[in-house]
């Protein structure tokens, strides 16, 4: 098979920059400990 017979494409990752929307996501222990401290 030569280069003209197939389509070779490398799919690049979908570039979605992101950050966790809740502090639980980043530091799952945090809200609960604070909740305990506050109560």
């Amino acid at each position, binding site marked *: 098979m030569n*280069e*003209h*017979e*197939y*389509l*070779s*494409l*490398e*799919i*690049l*990752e*979908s*570039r*979605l*920059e*992101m*950050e*966790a*929307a*809740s*502090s*639980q*996501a*980043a*530091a*799952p*222990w*945090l*809200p*609960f*400990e*604070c*909740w*305990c401290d*506050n*109560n």
Partner: protein
Amino acid sequence: MTEMEFVSSTLPPRIAGDVTIARFSCQEASEKWLVSVGHSHFLTDRTTAEKVLALGGGEAAGHAYSEVYDAYRKAVDDPETFERFVGWCEQNRKQLEGLAATVDTHALRYRRLLLSAPACDRIAARLGWLFRPSVFAMVWITAFVLMVICAIHRDVHASPGNFWFAAGLALLGIFLHEFGHITACVRHGARQGGIGIGLYWIWPAFYADVRGGWVLGHIERAVVSLGGLYFQSIYLATICAVELTTGDGTLSIAIGISTLLMLTTLNPVFKYDGYWILSDLLNVTNLHARIGSHLQALLASDRMARRRLFRTRMTGVAGGFALVATAYILYLLEMMLRMVASQIGRLPGLWLDASRAIDRHLPIFGEAGLSIARFSSTLLGVALLSLAICLLGYRSLQSAKMVLAQL
């Protein structure tokens, strides 16, 4: 079939949506070209990129379809090459026509747009000056100094503070974080697709659609990836300045949460900012996949090939990454399990408090209500965390199984 017969009898494949191509700077030995079709991006060789470009044009090109061939024929100026192009088109018709609808490779699911691209463009146009190199450097330094001063004085508060209000402030910081990515993207002239929210692995996450950023050079891409932390640092530095002046406890908690979030986002194990920053600085695309295939190749190849592979830069990257990833997942699981255990331990006491309050017929909006709320929220927390642990464990095992299956 002759060329003319072919053109008149069969329509060439058409790629829906705008197609653009550009040379892509990367670490590979051979020249790579970036093909952008709508929101999808592909790397390929120059010849393939030019052929795909010849077939693009979407609806705007109307029905003058054979013009595609005419244009390409003029460009190649060689009947034999042209015939091969026609054959290539037929052979890859299905894939070519489906390029615009290529499945999104990102693991962020259930995405919902919160702020449209035009709205983001308008705001970003006003904030672009923040990415002038002199301003960029000055702001980073000022923010860093303020955060250090704040960290030194973190135990001195005039008031105890409210966690939930602080969490709200941190959430606002995350939203501004996404604006940082968008603003950097717009400033460097790349297309952006707005800000939204979705589910990544097991966590809800805000995202900034900067898929258009692939057209930029790798240093510019790194600025886009750093842009979020940059904006969040400005926000955090402002909170630090107010906290230092007022000694407000809520602000202090907000600083704590935001700092943790910023540090977490630097972790390259998941596809948060750290992943993209590392990928851009190393100028390596599809980093996770490349690390995976490099590790597989190292384990599967014969001794000579392994020795050759071992000497490459990717071995250091892959080795370091595998160690960090394993340690991080184990740490996360251990932390979550420990928390579930401690919360389960609290449940009997909370249940006792709640039942006593009910027995004494205390008003439901008073102490009894509060006791029930404490018990229910802890129970809900235990349930959610257990679900998160199961999901994290399941996904980790799935990933490990996939790597092992390739061996």
